[in-house]
């Protein structure tokens, strides 16, 4: 492929004229301009998968809604980040996430430190719009420091990506399809038996919910440390 030069593009987000570099996404430019678009699977520094669909925005002239995290900016494009239609989509998607597994905040270890919970507050969603599916998964507490509770997982794959792209271990991946999709360690072994896990804890730091958490610390201390990943990337870039 022939490398394209990075150029500056001017376009509109919610009628505000903004500029960005041609290799940036709508979400990146929006964040630089303090325009809020909700996200769950997105994490700065990791590759974008556009899978949670929380960041869907309207791009004028496009038939379908597009995820802001993977949509590259274009000269003259007009982006709408919020409308009754978009709001309805986000509420339904969030409801679907809540219905999929067990997200009972009152008994969750990360109650108060959870991104899924935050989104609900931001969007003002008071109850799920769809019935609960009541799936049950076994908790893996075999690791000496960490616990994996698939019942709290929203399958954002941040853990999979951070382990592969930042730690370089690729100890985590997905198994099965559809509603049965699960995060596994190595070949679906107990975490403690994983040969490739370095116990670095990056997956735990980036998990947006209580699906991955540290043992032996109080709930109040179970803060997620997503900044660590970004600092790591920045310092690696400096070394280059």
């Amino acid at each position: 492929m022939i490398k394209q030069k990075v150029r500056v593009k001017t376009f509109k987000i919610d009628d505000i004229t903004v500029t960005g570099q041609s290799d940036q996404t709508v979400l990146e430019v929006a964040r630089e301009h303090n325009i809020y678009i909700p996200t769950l699977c997105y994490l700065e520094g990791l590759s974008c998968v556009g899978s949670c669909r929380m960041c869907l925005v309207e791009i004028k002239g496009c038939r379908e809604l597009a995820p802001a995290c993977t949509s590259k900016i274009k000269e003259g494009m007009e982006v709408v980040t919020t409308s009754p239609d978009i709001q309805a989509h986000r509420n339904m998607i969030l409801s679907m996430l809540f219905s999929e597994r067990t997200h009972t905040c009152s008994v969750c270890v990360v109650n108060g430190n959870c991104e899924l919970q935050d989104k609900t507050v931001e969007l003002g969603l008071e109850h799920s719009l769809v019935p609960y599916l009541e799936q049950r998964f076994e908790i893996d507490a075999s690791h000496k420091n960490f616990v994996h509770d698939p019942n709290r997982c929203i399958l954002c794959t941040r853990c999979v990506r951070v382990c592969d792209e930042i730690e370089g271990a690729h100890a985590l991946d997905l198994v099965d399809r559809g509603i049965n999709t699960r995060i596994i360690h190595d070949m679906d072994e107990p975490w403690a038996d994983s040969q490739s896990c370095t116990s670095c804890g990056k997956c735990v730091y980036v998990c947006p919910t209580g699906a991955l958490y540290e043992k032996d610390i109080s709930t109040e201390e179970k803060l997620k440390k997503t900044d660590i990943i970004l600092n790591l990337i920045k310092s690696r870039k400096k070394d280059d």
Partner: protein
Amino acid sequence: MITSIQELQKVAENRKCSEENIPQELRVCIGSSCLSQGSDAIQKDLEEAVKAKGLQNRCRVKGVGCNGLCANGTLVSHCDSSKKEQTLYEKVTASDIKELVKCVEDHSVYKEKRCDTNQPFFTKQNKVVLQNAGVIDPNEIEDYIAHGGYSALFHVLKEMSCTDVIDEVKSSGLRGRGGGGFPTGLKWESVYKVQSDQKYIVCNGDEGDPGAFMDRALMEADPHKIIEGMAIAGYACGANMGYIYVRAEYPLAVEKLDHAIKQAKRLGLLGNKIAHSGFDFDIEIRLGGGAFVCGEATALITSIEGNRGNPRQKPPHLSDYGLWGEPTILNNVETLANVPTIIKKGAQWFKSVGTTASSGTKIFALTGHIKNTGLVEVPMGITLRELIYEIGGGVSDGRELKAIQTGGPSGGCIPVEYLDLPIDYDSLKSIGTIMGSGGMIVIDDSSNMVEIAHFFMDFCKSESCGKCTPCRVGTTQLTLLLEKFINKEASKADLELLKQMSEIVKSASLCGLGQTAPNPVLSTVRYFENEYLEGIKDD
């Protein structure tokens, strides 16, 4: 090695000469449908019986691809060049072998099992892509060459520039037969225009729709046509490597393609400097594990790369960022198989078949409650009535037609009032369904449309890759909601939720699977709402 068009013609002549020495042929269908009824044993027994009678110099027994009328298999056709006619026999069993050999001996016709080829099933068809199906032996490249095979490739290499080929395909109006209906020439042009040292041609043979077997039949019956189409596409856009992605559940198709690729390489029709030109092109087969989502372009590419077959957000489109990040053309089996004929007969001829906006023919797999189950190729623009009642012979068991499901699990159900609608990409879209790859399931009045919608939604639920929330959770929620209607336990609010959730799954899902999964629900709610209302319990 064949290096010139003259040498190609010589191979064809030699084959024809040898055929003339043996004036009769018994062609046994060994496509998957007939094979499942033991047609391979019939072929073997026929060969032995012909030999035992000392007729091997008068009659050749060969296995051929799908003849079309799968409902009446095993099909055997008898070609007698002395009488210049072909007789088709249906429902042939081992007990008929003696009679068939007698026909060869006496140049007679075995009336009892004769299939009437004057019925609309045969006369209303227009076989362009399936021209060689049931005629040539897919195991023999010489047979394909004798029927004009590879002449389009040689013509392209010697007489045409890349842009000439693209222009020809563009002006033919050929649209993607996988279902999307995107203009093929435009797709080729966009890859041609990208500057890159490496480009790829990928053939999508991952047919996974319930009730569809068009691509399987084509790969089994005429593998060389697909190879030739891919090589022409490679020449047109500057690609030197092609991959055929076939699901492993199609072992016979894989076997035929594999054999065909080896033969083509042996004769120098694939490989380096084809026909002494500067064009190199090679093809490899990649087996798919049978995940429906792998029919989606980006998931298919990811699967070829050796990863879990998950789709990714488009853009970037494959023409910019395809296989291993290189510009890639991804075409369906039927699309590529149309190409050699377009080159041979010209774009104008192709345009004269079908409708203005959808030129050419389309292969349909007729299944469900229909008399003539099978594979048919008809010009675009034919009406559903002609297809169901004339070609298909009408609804089976004397029942009434209720609906037609087109486009596979992601298509929609068409009610009887649209029977006179001409079938093409745009007309189907206008009534809320799609062409899809060509599966056509006929539904009679004994069926419940909510159950039909549930069947397809359940299929999509099991086949969802699980990557994006709307498809993963939405298809499951929709399946459960439909179950409520089937069990007559739904409420009025459930119907509203069903509609709302279908719209959101459609517009918010990441790839084509999720975006089209609610189509059977939306189309049945639109045309058969009363059946949903019957599922609402009275409070």
